[in-house]
């Protein structure tokens, strides 16, 4: 068995790289590799034994690859989503710059799969960096002005994130005197500089996971990327940051400081703030990107709770994995649907809107979907009498508010899609890829091959009678709120994608030259003065439209407080 698994592991990581070698050959058949490349990884995730380990002393600085239940969940998600997006890409890609796209696709895929099975710092960080840098090529692919800006912001933040991460990993590895991720986490808890290390790791991975204030690149980059790339960016790659937290933070160990509570707070801000900024978007994909921030906020909240209450961490961990799997597939389906046109004929059209809405409602926790399972498991894991931290009492209302916000976002997305999508025929590959993700989102949970912990009893996908209320209330609230907004507000205020980043003064573009030598000092002072004035006036204009935003915040707060009382 073990040699088979080793072979599969090598194939999982190596196949995308080997595929690169075919690119100098002529022919359009290369793109048909896209759906097939992640399959060894998927197979590996499905057939792996519990706690499979493989030591590779010749690789990097003595590597170890391994799979446990947590990693298998992430690997399943990653491979499934990449494969389905690959099918979709067959019907999406044009021949312009196709080869370049394939190169970055393969490299990013390799990184994303590899980081899941890596068990030591060097290989984990290598795959992580490969994914980070290669996905720039996916973001930037279209080459439009927006794509360039998104790419620049993405790269700047990614590089800073990598540096924070490297600092954190170095400090941790020095404390642990080992490169194994498991020993790293243990050592961090006892380290004299524990708070610094934890902070560096949280922020370093936070860039990828869309931590508030490190999230600016996300709503810029996810929408401009080609749609199949957006799907994997928002569904799978964003989870790499989450996985990084789970693997390196000292979960389950008493650690000093207030990082746990801070993370819970940041999660709340992300889940509600992301939703607010999201409903004010004009582009379907931007709404979805904000929805990702908002959803990652809920996962952030779970990680924070696990960090703050070590004794519950072991129970919370599988829930996070479950939530990641659920969100990844649903979000992937939603992103792909933005590039699928509604069919003209009537029964097909109904089916289209139904399938379009299904993953969205699943995100909001509709009973009988993966979302309901994830939400219930989450509620149980965060039951407030079990948690000891400062923010514990706020968790339950937060989750309800989060569910309301989620559905509002989904409604906004559906509305935009309804307004903007023109009926027409779809390429067969596109439809197939999209349907695959929808099916994955709806069905994977019905035969999830391994247990997710003792939290959920069999058959866990069926809510018990008393749970329907807690699932349906937020949905009802959101529907009412959505309806009211639609009736009362003619035009939602606009928040530019990247929200606060819009306050960053833009640089006037000198045609022909991108970077010029800065002149000292007079011109510089002038430039700063100019920046300052544009900052203030720009901010004014941009925030004037925020009145409705404030109203919405009030409404959500109201719900929150009601629930808490």
């Amino acid at each position, binding site marked *: 068995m073990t040699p088979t698994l080793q072979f599969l592991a090598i194939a999982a990581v190596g196949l995308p790289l080997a595929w690169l070698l075919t690119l100098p050959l002529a022919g359009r058949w290369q793109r048909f590799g896209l759906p097939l490349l992640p399959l060894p990884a998927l197979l590996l995730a499905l057939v792996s034994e519990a706690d499979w380990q493989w030591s590779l002393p*010749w690789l990097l600085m003595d590597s170890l690859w391994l799979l446990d239940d947590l990693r298998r969940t992430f690997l399943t998600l990653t491979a499934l989503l990449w494969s389905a997006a690959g099918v979709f890409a067959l019907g999406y890609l044009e021949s312009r710059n196709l080869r370049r796209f394939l190169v970055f696709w393969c490299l990013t895929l390799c990184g994303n799969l590899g980081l899941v099975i890596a068990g030591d710092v*060097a290989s984990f960080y290598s795959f992580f*960096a490969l994914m980070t*840098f290669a996905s720039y090529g996916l973001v930037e692919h279209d080459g439009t002005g927006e794509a360039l800006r998104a790419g620049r912001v993405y790269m700047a933040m990614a590089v800073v994130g990598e*540096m924070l991460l*490297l600092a954190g990993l*170095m*400090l941790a590895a*020095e404390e642990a005197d080992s490169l194994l991720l498991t020993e790293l986490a243990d050592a961090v808890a006892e380290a004299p500089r524990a708070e610094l290390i934890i902070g560096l790791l949280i922020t370093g991975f936070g860039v990828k996971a869309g931590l508030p204030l490190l999230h600016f690149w996300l709503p810029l980059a996810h929408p401009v990327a080609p749609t199949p790339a957006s799907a994997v960016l928002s569904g799978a790659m964003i989870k790499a940051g989450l996985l990084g937290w789970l693997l390196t933070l000292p979960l389950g160990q008493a650690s000093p400081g207030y990082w746990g509570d801070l993370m819970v707070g940041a999660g709340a801000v992300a889940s509600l703030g992301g939703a607010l900024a999201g409903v004010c978007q004009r582009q379907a994909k931007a709404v979805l990107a904000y929805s990702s921030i908002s959803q990652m906020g809920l996962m952030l909240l779970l990680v924070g709770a696990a960090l703050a209450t070590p004794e519950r961490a072991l129970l919370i961990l599988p829930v996070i994995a479950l939530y990641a799997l659920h969100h990844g597939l649903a979000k992937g389906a939603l992103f792909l649907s933005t590039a699928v046109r509604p069919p003209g004929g009537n029964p097909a059209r109904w089916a289209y809107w139904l399938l379009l809405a299904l993953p969205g409602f699943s995100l909001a926790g509709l009973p009988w979907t993966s979302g309901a399972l994830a939400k219930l498991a989450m509620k149980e894991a965060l039951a407030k009498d079990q948690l000891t931290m400062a923010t514990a009492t706020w968790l339950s209302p937060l989750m309800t508010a989060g569910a309301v916000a989620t559905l509002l976002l989904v409604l906004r997305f559906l509305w935009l899609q309804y307004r903007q999508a023109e009926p027409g025929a779809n390429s067969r590959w596109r439809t197939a890829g999209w349907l695959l993700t929808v099916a994955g989102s709806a069905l994977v949970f019905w035969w999830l091959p391994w247990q997710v912990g003792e939290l959920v009893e069999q058959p866990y996908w069926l809510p018990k009678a008393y749970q329907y209320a807690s699932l349906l209330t937020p949905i009802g609230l959101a529907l009412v709120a959505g309806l009211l907004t639609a009736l009362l507000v003619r035009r939602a205020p606009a928040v530019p994608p990247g929200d606060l980043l819009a306050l960053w003064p833009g640089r006037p573009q000198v045609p022909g*030259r991108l970077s010029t030598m800065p002149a000292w000092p007079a011109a510089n002072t002038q430039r700063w003065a100019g920046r300052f004035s544009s900052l203030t006036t720009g901010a004014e204009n941009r925030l004037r439209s925020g009145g409705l935003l404030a109203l919405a915040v009030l409404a959500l707060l109201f719900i929150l407080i009601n629930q808490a009382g």
Partner: protein
Amino acid sequence: MAVDFSLNPWLPVLALATSLAASLVIFMLPEARHGLRTALNLGAAVAKLILIVVMGWGVFHGLEYQLAFTMLPGIEFELKVDSLSMMFAGLSSVLWLLTTAYAVGYLENSPNRSRFFGFFSLCVASTTGIALAGNLFTFFLFYEMLTLSTYPLVVHRGTATALRAGRSYIIYTLSGGAVLLLGMAWLYAETGTLDFAPGGVVDGSPTPALTAIFVLLVVGLGVKAALFPLHGWLPQAMVAPAPVSALLHAVAVVKAGAFGIVRVVNDVFGTGFANEAGLLLPLAGLAAFTIIFGSVRALFQQDLKRRLAYSTISQVSYIILGICLAGPLGMVGGLVHLLHQGIMKITLFFCAGNYAETLGVHRIDELDGAGPRMPATSVAFTIGAFGMIGTPPLAGFITKWTMGLGALEAGLPWVVAVLLVSSLLNAAYFLPIVHRLWFRPRREAWPEEVRWGRLETLGWLLWPPVLTAAAVVLIGVFAAMPFSPLSWAELVVNREYRP
């Protein structure tokens, strides 16, 4: 001295002689004998590589190769092969082979090739001598020979700028040599020996005289190593032809300076002594400043080779910084960068030369869209650039990681901050180039495009950077394998400098 007829003591001499003999023969060849000259060049390079591999295998198994004879009373000429000298000799022999091949293509149809290749071989002979030198005196001989043999290469083009750069180069390096000589003489007067020995030859307590000697030696060597503020010649010298710049930046000159500082710190003073005398921390500070300074200056260069030159100033100081951390891990990091920086930087210079020769592109803002036109070169450049930034799993990451852990081990967390800031700056000046290569569309014709048949450029020019770029990936990914730079650096430290 008993005469030993086994071949072993003569191996270092043979290694030295291959390039020396090649140089002499080439000087005498008529200009038109291209084929013979190329064959001689490559033959000598391959022969030397084989000798170095044989000696490397021997050193790995614990053999020592040594040859010494007295030149002046009390002063010996000594060639000695230890694991550290194998590092530098190995680097120079591998890269010499590649650079020779590259130069053959680069100088096709240009005048004065006999002169060029003659001095080229002489330059490599000096580098080998520096690597194999068994005491400071021998080191000094070859060090000066290197200065003199590189000057004709720098001014090879004979233009006004080249001559000016050459003058500046010779003034800087000869002054440095004089300071080095002074330090050496004083050292001999103080200690009575110029030998290299693991752990140092200086003992007793630190005295002001010893401090002054250390400063003199480091200043003398720091000129070639381009330590701030002695770096002025390096950016000017980039007017030299691309293969010369490649060799200058990767192996020959700057590395000779850095290698010399390694020898002085480790084998003359000894890390322990130097550290106790408080000599290393100021040097580490200077190296750290040079790292940041070089990167910041690089950021403002628009000429591709100039940017690379400032990047060299920054990167070579990594080696010195690593040595100054005075711990085993830091030393491994510094030593491994001796090789890593060489391979990465030579890749970048090869590529810069390819852009200049094939497309006529010298400035960074002319590079838009060069990726699709020259994919293999641009992939190599991209790999080299990411290696420099220190992205895992490439070679530069191995350096950064080892050195960072070494700094933490030595209780100097600020060094980690320097490494990170330097990486950020590296990203800031390399990523825009990579972006231009791959993501900017080409709107106008290339300045001077030359077509070389089926490949994107001449094969002689194409394969060297492709091979070195592959090496940058492989020595990073397989860093834990025996005979990788990392393993060899660990061997050096374990065998000779483990306290």
